[in-house]
């Protein structure tokens, strides 16, 4: 049995909290372990904060479409935005080993996305960024 949900959010950073509430409810409804839901929400925060803060050079309102689903133990999400073309997988910055003085702010998000997701794929379709992520979650009995 599968479960799916479509959510749209505006390009406003406060919307990320609303999305996290929806995903928590989705997780609880589908008996996803809290630890897996935290990891999903952490990754969604990284993805969406990046889109909202860097994706739109104008000051217009944009809608970001998110589809989430759970099939067995596999959680999938597809995030579609009409911002500037950006493939997060091509980010090469890595100062995780740097000292306090050398460490930069930012650039950590992509490492967190890759760590907590089992699969991450990006494509540019009809002037839109499409990011697909998958994760095998723990289901509580």
């Amino acid at each position, binding site marked *: 049995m599968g479960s799916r949900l479509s959510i749209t959010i505006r390009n406003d*950073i406060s919307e990320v*909290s609303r999305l996290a509430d929806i995903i928590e409810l989705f997780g609880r409804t589908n008996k996803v372990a809290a630890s897996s839901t935290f990891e999903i929400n952490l990754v969604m*925060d990284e993805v969406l*904060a990046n889109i909202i803060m860097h994706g739109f050079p104008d000051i217009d309102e944009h809608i970001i479409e998110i589809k989430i689903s759970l099939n067995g133990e596999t959680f999938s999400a597809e995030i579609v935005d009409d911002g500037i073309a950006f493939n997060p997988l091509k980010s090469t910055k890595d100062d*995780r080993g740097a000292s306090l003085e050398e460490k930069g*702010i930012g650039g*950590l998000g992509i490492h*967190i996305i890759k760590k907590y997701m089992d699969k991450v794929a990006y494509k540019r379709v009809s002037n839109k960024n499409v990011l697909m992520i998958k994760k095998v979650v723990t289901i509580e009995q």
Partner: protein
Amino acid sequence: MFKIETISNNEIKILGRFTAADVNAAEPVFNQFIATTIVDFSELDYISSAGLSVLLKTQKRLKESKAELKLVNMSKMVREIFHYVGFETIFSIE
């Protein structure tokens, strides 16, 4: 939901999710610290890179005056995030 509770002059507790949406609320609190401050993580669900950047900025500023943030009672998951992004070496974690 993200919340900051003041425990004493030199100790705070952070609760819930510390994400990009919470940076504007958190920064004024962290900017006030001028001496070594304990941050209790016991009720923190997770912290994203935006939240980590607030801690990093504060740690850089405090270290200039020989003070620091001391992070206590981290969950296994949050500790794992710190480990993974290389933050374990720049904070005192108990």
